[in-house]
């Protein structure tokens, strides 16, 4: 089998069927070394299943999965040595103390006594756990527990880090901390993160794989995905001018494909303009307002966020996905 030297994860035609249900259907993707890749999709899209297979916890029904060139089924030991995996909901032994737990995990992952001591110290510092090193995990806040989970995934300095929903249930401040931490891992490690929160993936990842119903619908950098729908971006203008004059005016501009004028408060009119080919009409509109002496209150380009792409490709998905 031809092996790509630079690939950290190679998934080919991966299928996973549970009794009566297909969780992952013919998935193929590769992740290069040093990338931070986001696995994005609504709940039940097969993200966790994919990650569990990558982490050698579940076997695949068919297809091949290679991590760092090792097959996850036949060379599971080699693979497990090279990955740090944090499952969904971050299960921990709640009766243990933070340092004790991390040390235990380091030993399980084959680190020697001295090395595990050293690594535990490093990851505790990295994850901001030094202050709570002697606390019992069960008594820690959710944010700290999440950090313990991350520290555990990092403790043996793995080549590949797999984090399943690392920011779920955290407050914005904690999410930011986790995000910073993940970003700091780039280059030295390959990171695969799953999330159903879009802005998060947008901020952390070099590349995103959008999954829905066990398949990958789109895989690209956040920028490229954005460009995909940029053609449909809109410009919102609020001007103090009579609606009829505005309608007249917009219809004469050839760059405007479609426009919509509606009354706002007072004498302001709100116009939504769709330009041809994603052109930026803002300077032209400003000049127009200036020439006619109209008061300009708002001029914005409505950039399509990834949320739109996400909703577009995963339609019809549940409402809850869009809210978060």
């Amino acid at each position, binding site marked *: 089998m031809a092996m790509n030297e630079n690939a950290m994860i190679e998934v080919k035609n991966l299928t996973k069927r549970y009794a009566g249900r297909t969780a992952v259907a013919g998935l193929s993707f590769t992740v290069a070394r040093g990338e931070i890749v986001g696995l994005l999709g609504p709940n039940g899209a097969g993200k966790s299943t994919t990650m569990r297979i990558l982490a050698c*916890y579940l*076997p695949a029904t068919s297809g091949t999965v290679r991590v760092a060139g090792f097959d996850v089924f036949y060379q599971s030991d080699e693979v497990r040595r090279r990955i740090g995996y944090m499952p969904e909901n971050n299960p921990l032994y*709640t*009766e*243990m103390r933070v340092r004790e737990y991390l040390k235990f995990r380091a*030993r*399980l992952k084959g680190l020697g006594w001295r090395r595990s001591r050293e690594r535990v110290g490093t990851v505790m510092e990295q994850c901001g756990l030094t202050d709570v090193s002697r606390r019992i995990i069960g008594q820690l806040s959710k944010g700290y527990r999440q950090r313990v989970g991350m520290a555990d995934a990092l403790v043996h300095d793995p080549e590949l880090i797999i984090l399943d929903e690392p920011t779920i249930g955290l407050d914005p401040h904690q999410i930011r901390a986790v995000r910073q931490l993940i970003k700091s891992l780039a280059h030295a490690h390959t990171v695969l993160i799953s999330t159903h929160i879009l802005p998060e993936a947008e901020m952390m990842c070099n590349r995103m794989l959008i999954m829905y119903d066990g398949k990958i619908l789109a895989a690209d950098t956040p920028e490229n995905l954005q460009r995909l729908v940029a053609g449909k971006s809109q410009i919102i203008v609020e001007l103090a001018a009579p609606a009829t004059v505005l309608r007249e005016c917009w219809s004469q501009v050839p760059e405007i494909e479609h426009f919509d004028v509606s009354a706002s408060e007072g004498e302001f009119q709100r116009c939504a303009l769709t330009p041809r080919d994603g052109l930026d009409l803002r300077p032209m509109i400003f000049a127009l307002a200036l020439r006619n002496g109209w008061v300009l209150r708002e001029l914005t380009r409505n950039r399509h966020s990834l949320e739109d792409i996400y909703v577009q490709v995963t339609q019809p998905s549940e409402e809850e996905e869009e809210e978060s």
Partner: protein
Amino acid sequence: MRIFLTLTRRELAAFFVSVSGYVIIAAVTLLIGWSFVVLMTNLGSDPSPMPVTELFYRTYFFWLIVLLATPIITMRLFALEKFSGTFETLMTTPVSDLQVVAAKFTAAVIFYTVMWLPMLPCLFVVRHFTDQPGSLDPGTIGGMYLGVFLVGCLFLSLGCFASALSRSQMAAAMISFVLGVSLFSLGFLAQAITVAIQWKTRLLSYFGLFDQMNNFARGVVDTRTLIFYISLTLFFLFLTLRVVESRRWK
């Protein structure tokens, strides 16, 4: 081996860190003490030719302890980890299934042995207050402890198996209790159907845990019983291992 020791240490710590470990020990101590008091009272009123250890096993308390305590000790082992999800973090580290099963079983056996320690002072009390040195000789005590240990291993391996089957601790405890009681009563079945066909009775009588235990308590160590216990224990541990491995081919 290093990983095995690390795992065993954690399992043992889990027993002693939680309250449940101490509750088990306290309950067992109570039962041992109680049966000891009953025994002493009976002995005071009419003498018996049997050694004290054997008398002790004649009390049903002993079997009650074994049958009840072992499921409670083992129910946690796999079921709780599966329930809380830590099984996933455990199995995605480079540990082998065999190491996990062996470590959990070893920790349970160590806990079980510790649990029986309160028995020793009772025996010393007997030794101190009787004028017959023959009532308690090291051989009998050794045989008795070997018996307790072997019966415990068998029931604990049963418990491991039950715990590996289930995600619920309650279900695990019930399964191992039912299995344990069935195994225990097989021996009585042999007595009940003595008139029936010879080989069946003989087969069943091999499962007479009660009688075998009496032998141990008398200080008689029969290799057949030894092999019986060890092989049955290994058999259930093997089944446990298969169950743990099963997630790879399910």
